[in-house]
């Protein structure tokens, strides 16, 4: 059992080059998975690495560092396209979880019910992965491969989420459905980002989580919405059948598959209405 808590990124990448390690950030997914009083195995704690925490606006993109917590995000001043992500920030676990859990950790944990994923998918999020040898970028949709499975190589660290500015437009909204008010795993959740020009939708980005192994963008429905006049009539285009072409929900203790599809469509209608300002 070896534990490393480097203060420099290079040091961390060197440790990863030396062999497989569990990466510890907020710890809110690692500890619930064990019964013991301490984490087993070799650990890389990234909590002390300088410059890894924070949200920065660059010329081409916004950048959310791997050490950034949900509370950091909720408190940041950000454009309206981030509304969905900020709403999600307040629904992740509890205040206690939001204070330590990181946004990148939510992605790396790759849970189908990760509340952060739909809100980042609609921002065309990319992940920055660094190893001792190189840095590469992967779209979020290509990063999460399945349940608890990501494209991160064992020698890589996800150092940031990069949000290209072309996608940071319009306004977004997040809708979460659970069986109780706080601290609840989503039955379904959706995020919608809508840009409007001359009362018509100029850009639409929609995503659904908890309804398939990996949260999905709804590309065909997005194209269908572009050009439509905003207003109550939008709702009729967002139906369960349109949703069903993108997701394959399972039936479990939280809901039937049919219900999930139906509920996701309803949540989308509400999210689109909110994002388009017609609610």
């Amino acid at each position: 059992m070896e534990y490393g808590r480097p203060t420099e990124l290079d040091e961390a990448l060197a440790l990863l080059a030396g062999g497989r390690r569990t990466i510890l950030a907020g710890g809110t997914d690692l500890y619930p998975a064990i019964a013991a009083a301490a984490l087993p195995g070799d650990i890389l704690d990234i909590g002390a690495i300088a410059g890894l925490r924070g949200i920065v606006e660059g010329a081409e993109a916004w950048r959310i560092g791997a050490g950034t917590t949900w509370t950091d995000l909720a408190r940041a001043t950000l454009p309206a396209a981030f509304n969905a992500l900020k709403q999600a920030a307040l629904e992740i676990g509890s205040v206690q979880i939001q204070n330590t859990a990181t946004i990148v950790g939510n992605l790396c944990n790759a849970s189908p019910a990760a509340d952060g994923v739909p809100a980042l998918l609609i921002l065309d999020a990319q992940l920055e992965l660094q190893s001792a040898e190189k840095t590469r970028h992967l779209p979020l949709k290509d990063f999460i491969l399945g349940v608890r499975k990501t494209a991160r190589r064992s020698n890589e660290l996800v150092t940031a989420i990069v949000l290209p500015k072309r996608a940071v437009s319009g306004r977004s909204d997040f809708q979460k459905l659970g069986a109780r008010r706080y601290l609840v795993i989503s039955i379904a959740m959706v995020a919608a980002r809508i840009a409007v020009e001359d009362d018509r939708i100029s850009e639409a980005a929609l995503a659904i989580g908890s309804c398939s192994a990996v949260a999905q963008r709804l590309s065909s429905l997005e194209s269908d919405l572009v050009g439509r006049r905003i207003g109550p009539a939008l709702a009729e285009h967002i139906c369960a059948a349109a949703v069903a072409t993108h997701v394959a929900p399972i039936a479990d203790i939280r809901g039937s598959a049919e219900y999930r599809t139906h509920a996701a469509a309803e949540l989308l209608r509400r999210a689109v209405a909110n994002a388009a300002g017609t609610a």
Partner: protein
Amino acid sequence: MTGKIDVRLDLNGHRTAVRALPTRRLSDLLRNELRLTGTKVGCDAGDCGACTVLLDGAPVCACLVPVAQVTGRSVTTVEGLSDGSLSRLQHAFLRHGAAQCGICTPGMLVAAAALLETTPRPTMAEAAQALGGVLCRCTGYRKILSAVCDSWRDPPPAAQPQAGCAIGTRLERLDGVPKVNGTDIFGADAWPENSLVVHAIRSRYHHAAFELGDIAAWHGARPGIVAIFSAADIPGRNRFGVIPPFADQPALAESVARFRGEAIVLIAGEPDAMATLDTTDFPIDWTVLPHTLEPQAALAAEAPRLHDDRPGNILIEGAVRRGDTQAALASSAHVAQGAVETPYGEHAYIEPEAGAAWLEDDTLVIQACTQAPYMDRDDTAALLDLPPDRVRIIPTATGGGFGSKLDISLQPLIGLVALKTGRPARMVYSRTDSMAATTKRHPAHMRARIATDDQGRITAMHFTGDFNTGPYASWGPTVANRVPVHASGPYCTPNYHATARAIHTNGAISGAFRGFGVPQATILQELLYDDLALANGLDRLEFRRRNAYRDGDVTVTGQTLRAGVGIGKCLDALAPHWTRALGDAEAANHRAGGEHRRGVGIASCWYGCGNTALPNPSTIKLGLTNAGDLILHQGATDIGQGSNTVITQICADALGLPISSFQLLGGDTAMTPDAGKTSASRQTYVSGKAAELAGRALRAAILRHANVTEAAVLALHGAVLTVADGGAARAIDLVSFEPDADGFVFRAEESYDPPTTPLDANGQGDPYAVYGYGAQMVELAVDVALGTVKLLKITAAHDLGRVINPTLAEGQIEGGIAQGIGLALMEEYIPGRTENLHDYLIPTIGDVPEIETILIEEPDPEGPFGAKGLGEHALIPTAPAILNAIKDATNARITTLPALPHRVRDAIVAARSKT
């Protein structure tokens, strides 16, 4: 680096340095290394928030924080919230009754303190948002919200009632201060130095035979493991159970495990070795056997038999028959019929089972959380082949019980280790072990038909229920007997036939959970009452008032209710609220259209206090020492419901001395007589009556000594007892008396056993001496597109006979309602699937709406000062009132609980397709 690191932190304002494994949970370091046990652990998964501490001022779950990450930072625990005296927040918690059992209180206080730092006068919504991550199972959260929002105020002086005036006072809990400053000792909070840590290896299968492999080799390879025990090591009769004739459960399974979570082997070792122990390769050869999880399957001829002497897997059937039910059903004007299914319910107290055991001379001492110290003593003694007086049970504060801590859990396990090794032993159940291994609410499959005449009067009811009692008896017989007695509800039912069977399966063990099956049965009865009201063209409240029991009525068991029947008054008290709520809902539904529909529902309860037609005594002892200490041996275990306070209030007024004169001694079986179990809503009534009798007896002894009349007034100042009668006052100098063996110069010990009669073959008799009554009204909104339910307000009217402590009574009602909300809307325990607090959902602070409580006092001639029980009553009406309100809002009838969004949505669709 490998191994331990130096951790330096600012802990509650003190620079602290400690060596620890870097990824050790901060909660574990605080509790087990630094012995700051005010921070509680309820789940080790961030699901309950009990371990909330402030890290640089921000609330975090200490169970999820590696100690390496707190280096150089500040940590504040509940112990750091005040410096000796209490903070305004802590005072507010006491004043509002925001702490019941107290196990969530440190987490609540710490989370609230963070909020108050930035928002000194928060709104209810701000407080709820800040506390959404801390679960409470006792209070229903409303008093916590009130306390936080009121904490800016300087505390007003606490109530200090004069002699004879304690009853009816909003007295702060007598055991409250340790609950708000983090010093209360719960099961996991104290253990002798040098204690071994005990871990149980449990079955992962619902039903499997097993053989133990080469344990000696496994043990030999693991230094620090001190002993390993199996069923063969149990010296006594390896069968226990809360009802001795049905005792059937082994403390450690013998060759066959009958449910998932059953303990097979105990491992005891040094703390360091146990902290990192991996038992995945422990040598057990399993042979998986066919299993049943549903009563229907267990009843089938080919089903595996769980116990050879219980054919058909039927543990017991209870029945009540009165009149000619079939004939009455056939000839009645209106008949409603239906079926309801309810799932396993988990108690989900925030304190998992925990305790320590050690030997004192030849006595085995067990200090653990419990609801029933004497039952623990007797069962543990039998298992370990000790005479009962060589087992001493010291109850700790108990972090919620609700019925499940009536059964023994770890007592015989740590007792066995202490006995065999000679070393102290401690054990703390993980959340998963607690959920898998201990009892549940019985899942129920129920059918009923209820009929009325053409005047809207009930003529007959037929009820059958199959209750999944799991592999062992536990309280299955009690459920089978209680349900038929109560399934009529508090309504005149002249012709009645009800049966309830407890059926064995390989599911979780079902036992006692607030209401012993009555909440399940009441759901069905109250659903059908709404149908009958509709069929009769009567308002739903009016229909219930028309049929409610009155003084002099005869119950379904043939018992004449001579006096104290308060259901009519409860329903009357709701009437103006009902009219207002129906109007509000109609107006809202008229305004809004579409997505949200408002509805209103109502339901009632009655509940017999104490054992069903069986002896159920309590004994209370008190005495005055020659130093002037007035000692109350208060053995009615306080699991948060408030018996420490209520019993003392009753005793104080019976004796005629103020509360402030009393000192309490707890339910230690070596010191305090048996006040029975905390169960069946019996403590205020039964132990309260014993406390009243004991108080009166002590008073009589003093008055006799002073040779004064009953009108005399007592006062205690130091060791001088003053007796004033008319104009004359006499001072009795207690120092001059020779104390008895207990140190007492005046003493009294009184027992009380409710006057009940056995039930005959038709279930006829007087099963209870006292009943309590209540009715609740729910207002809600249903999101018809999503099937989600938002509760808006619950109005609860409960007849307590005499209110001993209004604050505690409201707390019981609010807490019962919260559990009823869970039963109705979200709780569903599935063995192997929901053994944690994120898959098994209980209401959070955002799920309990405003509750308006109306306390009714219809005195019972038998109860102490007229008082009745309340604990279980409060939960019973909530779920049916919610389901009736959903029906009112949407026409959707929910018959499979819980009413999860997908079920509500399906029912809405089904209801639409019918119209």
